[in-house]
């Protein structure tokens, strides 16, 4: 299929769900109840994506409190002194005081991501994208008192994530995505981040995606700039596609794809997830047409700029439908043999 549609990962978190998650972090409901609530929400998110016509769906990352803590709270050796939160979305203060224990760990010390995947797998016949935050971004939220060389913490986290990726592949995952939402804030460390990505993906036989954006916490960019910093370093990454944001930032950075001879897949962000305004299908189509000037259609995947978590459920659904409709317009043009 040309121009497959997918999501970046997270899905809309309605206000009622936010409240319930906060109730858990304030110890007012049990972990069991929260798990059941999350599962209901995941089923709804998958159904929403299917109904919108998304080809490759995700679990909406709805089990996660945020993009970092879900992982840090599960990684052996990461110390989180205070686990109650005023609001579920707040970040923990996390620290490592000793080098992380190396694998193989004790049984049951994994992060449990394979179980998360299995739950989603039995919900849908669609292909699934499973995403997790990369080692570089995770390291930025840890106070490191253990490693003399800061890069060693990143590498240790990467090894831990590599073990998870192996479990995910064994559970049937076929498309895994590493998210590096903090990387754009530290462009001078891109080589380290790519080195860590390669540790994560090592010997894990799945399709790998790498998502780099300018941040989406609270629906705001954390940084501004251009993707220049990513190239050429990212060419050394053992991944099959990069997933980048273009809708909000504009399409100028597409030039980098040609300039640096990126010959793998591009996940093209065509939906601005920081704005509640729903893009018309024709606008989506025009963005795709522009990208096709730089990337052949058999290497282009279409997705929103980033996760949909900060959009209301109704807006998220409308945006996904608009994206699918925009893709359909271009697919028709391609199938008719017309120039895009």
């Amino acid at each position, binding site marked *: 299929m040309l121009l497959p549609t997918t999501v970046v990962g997270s899905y809309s978190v309605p*206000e009622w769900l936010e*409240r319930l998650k906060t109730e858990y972090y304030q110890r007012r409901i049990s972990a069991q109840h929260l798990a059941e609530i999350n599962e209901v929400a995941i089923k709804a998110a998958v159904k929403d994506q299917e109904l919108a016509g998304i080809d490759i769906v995700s679990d909406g990352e709805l089990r996660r409190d945020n993009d970092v803590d879900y992982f840090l709270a599960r990684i052996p050796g990461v110390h989180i002194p205070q686990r109650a939160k*005023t*609001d579920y*979305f707040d*970040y923990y203060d996390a620290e490592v005081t000793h080098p992380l224990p190396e694998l193989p760990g004790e049984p049951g010390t994994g992060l449990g991501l394979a179980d998360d995947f299995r739950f989603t797998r039995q919900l849908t016949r669609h292909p699934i994208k499973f995403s997790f935050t990369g080692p570089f971004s995770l390291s930025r939220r840890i106070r490191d008192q253990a490693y003399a060389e800061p890069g060693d913490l990143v590498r240790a986290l990467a090894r831990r994530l590599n073990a998870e990726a192996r479990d995910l592949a064994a559970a049937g995952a076929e498309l895994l995505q590493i998210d590096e939402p903090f990387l754009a804030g530290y*462009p001078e460390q891109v080589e380290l981040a790519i080195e860590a990505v390669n540790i994560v993906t090592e010997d894990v036989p799945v399709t790998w995606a790498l998502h780099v954006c300018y*941040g989406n*916490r*609270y629906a*705001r*960019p*954390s*940084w*501004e*700039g*251009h993707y*220049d910093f990513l190239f050429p370093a990212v060419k050394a990454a053992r991944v099959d596609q990069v997933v980048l944001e273009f809708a909000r930032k504009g399409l100028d950075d597409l030039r980098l794809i040609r300039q640096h001879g990126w010959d793998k897949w591009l996940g093209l962000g065509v939906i601005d997830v920081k704005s509640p305004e729903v893009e018309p299908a024709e606008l989506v189509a025009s963005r795709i047409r522009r990208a096709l000037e730089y990337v052949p259609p058999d290497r282009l995947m279409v997705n929103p700029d980033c996760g949909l978590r900060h959009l209301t459920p109704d807006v998220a659904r409308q945006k996904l439908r608009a994206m699918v409709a925009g893709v359909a317009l271009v697919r028709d043009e391609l199938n008719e043999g017309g120039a895009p």
Partner: protein
Amino acid sequence: MDVDLRPARKLRESAAARSVLGPILETVCASPADLGRLRVVCDWIQYKQNFRGAVVSRPVADTDVEIAFDLRRCADIDLAAHVKQALDGEPGLTLEPWVPGRDSLIWRFNQLYWQALSRWERHTGREYEQSLPGGESDARNTEAARELILELFRIWDELDARRALPEELYILELGVGNGSQARTWLDEFVQLDRRHGREYYHRLRYLMGDYSPHVLDRARQAVAHHGERVSALVVEATRPAVTLGFLAQKAFLVYISNVYDNLPTDELASIHGRTYQVETRAFLTEDDAEAIAARFGARRDDLVTLIDRLLRIGPELLSEANPGQFADPGQAVAFWRAAWEALRLRERYVPLQGLDSYQITPSLTGEILRPLIEGHGDVRMHVSNGALGSFTGTLPLLHPFGRVQCHDLFLTASQQYRTGFYGPGKYDGSVVNWVNGPLLQLVASRRGFGVEFTPFRQRPGSNITTLTAQARD
């Protein structure tokens, strides 16, 4: 019977304040009110011009009654007569139906004040800055400007080194006063930029936003020598994004001074574990209505229409439309001032059907209030709807490295609502309400911004507090 004594400091410091407590309780107990359904609330209303009588009553969900005393005015009045009048329902000329506080007539008066400020000033013989405490705005200060500018230079240098500095560097000032702040800031910027040597001034875009075209005109003259670096925009303060949407994620500094305290607000109260909305109804006392009618040659009952007309068309057109009452615009302004001075508010508590069903702004439900209003006993607080609309509309304008700096009357802890009175009061021709700082802090936090409150350093002892908001994480 609950007794809620709020003015903690006054009671500690003032024998006069304490001396009326006994008589108040004696009077209430001697009244025919059902004491099991009565709340007694004592405030010290520091605004000599305000919207309350010395003793007022407020129905609580049509079953209970709150009777409220202004201790400042209770020493020399016939308490028994006032209590009786409050409980019986004070007669007067009603000017509007019951409405939430933010929809009250008082905000139409407030709006008129800013729209027809020049008329008001001409009539009173004072510029509005002279009616501020100390006779001037707290906005202008060279040292404060220098600190901010140097911090901006530091950020811009860093971004420039990463090729991430935008071509245009936006600064936004909301509520521009007479332009002194803008002039001070820009003049200082020129000097510091010359010393810094990066020519940021040529990339600077200083936007002045204000509700009042008259104020903007005056401010524009003050910064005329900065030419095209400065633009002036009429901005609806509670919905800045309508005019300023183009600035999204571009502003490095949003500077706001003495705006939020002057924007419409509701009040909510928690009484015995239940949440209520305070509804208000503007009126004139019988005596005031008769006096105003006599002074301007109108019938008492026509005042409702005349006031409504004044608020719709302003004093100039009112004098044209009603030459019989108002021979010239000055007469109409005199009517405006008289009505404003006499304006009072009745209040009642209406039960709220769940915080999530209460809309603070179109995009924010009352759910955000839960940590502040629930589980902390009886409390009544401002929702600061207008300020929140403005604040939440402003935050998205910030560049990731931008900040909001705001000087205003902020409460900095919810506890303060238990120990003092924070509005509404009358300030010249405008309304003043302190702003619910902890609520702004909470809302900002849910949007990824940290908020700090610091005393306004440039004028020790001032009630003004500085709020600084910038991205966290």
